[in-house]
């Protein structure tokens, strides 16, 4: 690959990030995607749209979220300063709302009356149901039957918000199958339906649009670290499933070449066991869900079932921009195991009084590793992408505690 001078210049006109991304979908979806691309291209520079989005982010989501210096955690670890971007403090408790607020606005500007979404952990489903309720749009959420079982609270939360949760029983009954089912719904009902994809995957323009709506995380964090610490961080880290919170915080730093960027993927029981979801660390380039990216598949090209204690990271692909950043050498992607994430969860809870989502606990674990490599005046910025209330049952069950 040729030397990249501006990491903010992607994707290109074809929706590609170098060899990755693109529009790998059935013919029936080409026109709906072209319509969406045209609408989004217009809206992203439309002053009225931007003003409305900014108002929603400020007064409904509660932005900006703080950057918090986790002093007791840093001291306990005994390395560099660890600072946390507190996306867990957003309305609905995660970064996902940044994207759904944006896409719901796009849906309204396009005149669509029905919203569909897929969800894994349920966070994106809740965030979609939330904005649909607020805008008075009908909302259908596709969710794998296995995920419904392990995320009961979020399922009930979506129903409280007026959404219909449709169990998906095909394939592995998890996020990827929910995504397939949502695509089918969209193909069939495209005239009145807007599909809110929850991560930076899918066909163009989704990886770009979802990134743009989450990029506020990094823009704020960059300005906040300069303001609070008088400098940029040495390293930025975030957990990577589909990769929306990660690209959100990474993007503003991509052209700051001195800032190291590290994504933490779910290594599950350990990459060597095969029971993991580390598409970038252990996968190969392939095509899944409308884009070319790193995927986890077997020798026959069948997508394999992944494993992570965190439902939100349990995905066999990854956003194409991450694949691009990996191959360009701009970002590193490493695995964090279930056990390491759990240990970080407990450490953060006891030293800082913060219950992190299991997804975000992977980023905390990685931040701890990175802090140990740096001197005390070093600065590690981690994206605390969501709060852990939804996970307390999973954690209790794993530790043999009956609630």
């Amino acid at each position, binding site marked *: 690959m040729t030397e990249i001078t501006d990491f903010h210049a992607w994707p290109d006109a074809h929706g590609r990030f170098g060899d990755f991304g693109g*529009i*790998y*979908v*059935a013919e029936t979806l*080409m026109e709906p995607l072209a319509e969406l691309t045209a609408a989004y291209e217009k809206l992203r520079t439309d002053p009225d749209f931007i003003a409305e989005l900014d108002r929603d982010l400020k007064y409904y989501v509660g932005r900006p979220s703080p950057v918090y210096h986790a002093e007791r955690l840093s001291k306990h670890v005994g390395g560099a300063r660890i600072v946390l971007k507190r996306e867990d403090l957003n309305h609905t408790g995660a970064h996902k709302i940044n994207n759904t607020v944006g896409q719901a606005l796009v849906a309204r500007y396009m005149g669509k009356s029905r919203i569909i979404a897929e969800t894994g952990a349920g966070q994106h489903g809740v965030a979609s149901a939330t904005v649909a309720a607020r805008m008075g749009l009908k909302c259908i959420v596709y969710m794998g039957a296995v995920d419904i079982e392990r995320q009961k609270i979020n399922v009930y939360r979506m129903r409280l918000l007026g959404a219909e949760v449709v169990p998906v029983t095909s394939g592995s009954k998890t996020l990827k199958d929910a995504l397939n089912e949502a695509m*089918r719904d969209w*193909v*069939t009902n495209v005239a009145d339906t807007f599909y809110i994809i929850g991560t930076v995957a899918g066909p163009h323009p989704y990886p770009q649009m979802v990134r743009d709506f989450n990029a506020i995380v990094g823009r704020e964090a960059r300005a906040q670290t300069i303001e609070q610490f008088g400098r940029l961080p040495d390293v930025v880290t975030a957990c990577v499933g589909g990769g929306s919170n990660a690209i959100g915080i990474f993007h503003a730093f991509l052209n700051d070449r001195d800032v190291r960027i590290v994504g933490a993927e779910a290594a599950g029981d350990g990459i060597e066991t095969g029971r993991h979801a580390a598409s970038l660390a252990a996968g190969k380039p392939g095509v899944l869900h409308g884009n070319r990216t790193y995927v986890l598949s077997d020798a026959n090209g*069948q997508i394999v079932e992944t494993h992570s204690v965190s439902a939100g990271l349990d995905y066999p692909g990854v956003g194409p921009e991450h694949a691009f950043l990996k191959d360009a050498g701009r970002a590193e992607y490493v695995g964090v195991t279930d056990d390491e994430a759990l240990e970080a969860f407990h450490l953060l809870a006891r030293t800082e009084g913060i219950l992190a989502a299991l997804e975000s606990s992977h980023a905390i674990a990685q931040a701890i590793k990175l802090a140990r490599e740096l001197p005390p005046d070093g600065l590690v910025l981690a994206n605390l992408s969501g709060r852990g209330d939804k996970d307390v049952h999973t954690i209790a069950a794993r530790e043999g505690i009956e609630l």
Partner: protein
Amino acid sequence: MSRIDRRFAALKAAGRTGLIPFVTAGDPSPDGVVALLHGLVAAGADLIELGVPFSDPMADGPVIQHASERAIAKGVGLANVLAWVAAFRENDTETPIVLMGYLNPLEMYGYAAFAEDAVDAGVDGVLMVDCPLEESHVLEPLRQAGLQQILLASPTTTEARVGALCEAAAGFLYYVSFAGITGAAQLSTGDIAARVAGIRARSKAPVAVGFGVRDAAGAKAIGEFADAVVIGSALVDRIAGATSADDAVGRARDFLAPIRAALDAR
């Protein structure tokens, strides 16, 4: 002239409408695939679409998805599919075979390696559901090797895209008659007829129509204005419960015979 081109030229010369059955490779039984392919030809198939099983068939309905899942559970992969085509070619060098599926199995096999092995096996074309014209650069090694990429058009395809598709079409152009997933809902024949007429007038390649054709009446209605009719989910559904390879062949024959007759009665 390719095998597909020769077949469509012969159909045109004879004034016949082509019949293109689809089956998923390895379903209902991996042992019976070659016999089933010959059975389809005996029942009147002019060209065969052979589905390469994929774990995440985004654009297919439950019938074909389940067929894929069953085949994958029996260990069916792209290499098996190519071996079956090669075995079929030992006794049939005339019936074109198009592999239908998704890109990821080709990505893992390697495009160049696949192109070479597919040509050796006697495959004539590929229809990659998740590879629209805009991304077909990835299939360049296949075209170089002489395989034809079958392109699709659909009710949501704009006139501008139809023009590009008609220009790029090779083998035949596959018109998806329903905007949803395979095997769902009813046809509205009038709409399809008008659209297909417009496409046929512009396309360099013949136009086959599929998605939603379930029986002789549906096939006959489509046959009035298409160069060929594709039958997929309904056939897969019919042979799914077969108790043996012979039973599958028998079921396919019983299902296709009235459709063939209806097309020939025009």
